[in-house]
């Protein structure tokens, strides 16, 4: 049909990437940052963000060499069939792990913050069912839900930052960079987990309408989380100081609690409610990645039956950890594995260039 939209629009791409990255971690990122970098937490988060933007750029460049393929297909082309499949399976396992980690973290936080007497299982199963419904609708349903949720979510986060801006005590930042820049860089690698979710960039190019502008809008989608997280951590450490921040389990909630509006006694509950949106979109894109990769690794087209196979798996995986230290350990693993998954785009790109796979010339040949 004339000028009918045939794929994801540019705005949808940005919304999807942003909401995949902004997720469960938003309530605890100030703590992680303060633990890793002390007073320079915001800077570390910002540097990690820059790193994630660069990696997103590499992923996009790589994807653009294969405009009609997702990572599962072109990794097989680049690495050969066997290693490509292994890479695909790693992606599947990784997605499931992240999904379960986020789900568990989410359910734990919800138990502490909102529903102290509701069993974990119930909150998790309910969430999984809603995700199932969304992913079952396909990528177009996922991106459209993201589009709708982008604005309210941003509004609440920006309000939280904005209302607390006047409370920031700038004198705390006098001791910034007292240990030099190196520890900050080191800390930055510890907080890359915050931005995880932009791996969705590996998968979406074949569905995008305007493939030329993928770079601009993909990057735009990754810039927004950087601003949100850095702003949040900056305000948080400015208000409470690095020591207090690192001792709070969910510091962002405390930040929201500072806000008192006449008719809402506790702004933090509102924050938690909208944070559910962020968690939901992240989980959705990971479930999509997992089921999509698994399907394509097995050489099939319809991924919808695989969602049903993966869901119980994710549930079991998220119910397995016994205590918070186990969960934190998984968190650390996820942090590094996720970083390496994103980083794997660099060797893939190099090999692709060396082996002359993909690119404009090849695309025309096909």
């Amino acid at each position, binding site marked *: *049909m*004339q*000028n*009918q*939209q045939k794929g994801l*629009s540019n*705005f*949808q791409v940005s919304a999807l990437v942003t909401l995949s990255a902004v997720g469960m971690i938003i309530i605890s990122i100030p703590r992680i940052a303060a633990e890793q970098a002390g007073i320079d937490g915001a800077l570390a988060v910002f540097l990690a963000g820059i790193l994630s933007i660069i990696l997103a750029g590499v992923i996009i460049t790589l994807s653009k060499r294969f405009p009609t393929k997702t990572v599962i297909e072109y990794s097989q082309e680049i690495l050969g069939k066997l290693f490509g499949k292994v890479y695909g399976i790693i992606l599947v396992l990784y997605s499931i792990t992240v999904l379960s980690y986020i789900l568990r973290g989410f359910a734990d936080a*919800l138990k502490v913050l*909102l*529903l102290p007497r*509701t069993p974990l299982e*119930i*909150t998790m199963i*309910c*969430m999984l069912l*809603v995700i199932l*419904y*969304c992913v079952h*609708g396909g990528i177009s*349903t996922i991106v*459209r*839900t993201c*589009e*709708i*949720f982008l604005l309210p979510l941003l509004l609440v986060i920006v309000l939280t930052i904005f209302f607390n801006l006047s409370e920031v005590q700038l004198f705390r930042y006098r001791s910034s960079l007292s240990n030099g820049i190196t520890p900050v860089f080191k800390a930055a690698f510890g907080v890359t987990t915050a931005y995880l979710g932009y791996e969705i960039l590996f998968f979406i190019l074949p569905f995008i309408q305007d493939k030329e502008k993928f770079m601009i809008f993909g990057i735009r989608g990754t810039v927004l989380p950087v601003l949100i997280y850095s702003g949040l951590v900056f305000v948080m450490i400015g208000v409470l100081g690095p020591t207090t921040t690192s001792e709070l389990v969910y510091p962002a909630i405390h930040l929201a609690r500072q806000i008192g509006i*006449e*008719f*809402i*006694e*506790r702004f933090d*509950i*509102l924050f938690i*409610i909208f944070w*559910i*949106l962020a968690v*939901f979109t992240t989980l959705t894109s990971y479930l999509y990645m997992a089921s999509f990769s698994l399907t394509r690794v097995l050489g099939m087209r319809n991924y919808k039956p695989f969602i049903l196979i993966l869901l119980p798996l994710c549930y079991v995986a998220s119910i397995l950890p016994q205590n918070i230290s186990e969960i934190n350990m998984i968190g650390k693993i996820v942090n590094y594995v996720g970083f390496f998954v994103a980083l794997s785009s660099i060797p893939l790109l190099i090999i692709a260039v060396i082996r002359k796979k993909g690119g404009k010339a090849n695309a025309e040949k096909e």
Partner: protein
Amino acid sequence: MKIIKRNKNPKNKEVIGERQKPQPQSEDRVNLDLSKNLDENYEKFQAFLKESTDAVFRRFKLGQNKISCALIYIDGLVEKEVVHNSILRPMMSNVLEYEAMIEDVIKPEEAYNFIIDHVISVAEIKETETLDEAMLLVLSGEVALIIDGYDKLIILSARGWSTRGLSDPQSESVIRGAREGFTETLRTNTALLRRKCKDPNMVIRTIRLGRRSKTDVAYAYIKGITNPRLIEELEERLSKVDIDLIASAGHLEQLIQDNSLTPLPQMQVTERPDKTIANLMEGRIIVLVDNSPFALTIPTTFAQFFQSPEDYNERWIVSSFIRFIRWAASFFAVFTPAVYIAVVTYHPGLIPTRLALSIAAARIGVPFPSIIEAVLMELTIELLRESGARLPKGIGQTIGIVGGLVIGDAAVNAGLTSPIMVIIVALTAIASFVIPTYSAAIGLRTMRFPLMLIAATLGLYGVMLAFIFINIHLVSIKSFGMNYMTPQAPTIFNDMKDFVIRGPARKMKKRPVQSYPIDMIRMDME
């Protein structure tokens, strides 16, 4: 999976198809071809219609040659004046006078053309050579004229039956806007459309649907604006309709809609011609069903349910405010009771302390948990609404007063419910009536009850999950393959001008993109 597929075996389908094939309606098998003999044709009509008392058979002779003729029509569907003065009188007496004047007689072989050319003074006539077409036309209110010696019939249009006059649209009244609504007669409705748009490109096509009812279904679109693919899609869906009776527009809507697992309508149903014509200009198709005063708009967006013609008659700032109120109202109508239950049961900390205390104080005497209280009150108000809608106007007011007293004051005094709950229920009820489209409003209202249950079990987390669920549902609905939630998802910034905000009239230069019109430019002025 395989078992299900086997059931879908085409062989089974054939069996069902055979069983459903139309059976001959009369017990005597009748050869449906027309013959040259009047008596034979006459008897064929009689075989079908003799048992019906409203069928009129009238035999007479034409001219001095006494050519046998017969009129067949259905009493009540034709205008008697026309039959008497323009058909029977000229044929029976004027022909004789004419013959006397020219001193000649009309020969049987030229009678047919002579009658058409000189005798009958009816504007619209048709010829038909088959019995079933003639039968259908007679049953739709035409008069069939059989002339001896011809194997074709003359069909004379003398339709006229009692109809309702144009009246104020009952379900969509406006303050500033036209006062006329569609009626039950298809012709009147198409005329209403024509009067509003004299563009020769506005096409109104008619097809007959319903195996037995043979209901006229008209669809209108504007050539050059409406996307041809959309028209094809509609025609294809209409052609698949195979049912005995098309009862109304709402019935047809459910036969051709995309998704039946939803409380929300996927076509806009309106009885306002002004709304209809505006939709036509946006590249949409209008479907009118005979005997139904409602028009279907295809495709439609969710946002359209919040638009009313009077928005465009007021200044844009005012209309935008009203639009915003409507959107907020829809949100209240769905979520208020659920949020109330969740907050009172799980998160009393969310509300300011004083209010929380007064709520708790008001609830002291109430024996039920808030969910029971809420469901009870919401059900009561639905009962009141339903009984008020069914009763005649005079009694309806009584019900309103009684209901108002019962759920307002008496229920609180009796300790069945708290005053806050009454406010919540009243707010939801009023809010749901703000939405201009009835079918959308009632769809949204239905969602309230499952939401209350979720709120009672999972608190605000459940409400949020339900909110997410509703949103996923909304974005996955299609209206004739078009996106239901435009311009929000997919986001179309240009169409945001006519969304929650109704932009200034001079700024709305393009048609909305949802139905993919061929011609996007609506306005060419500064």
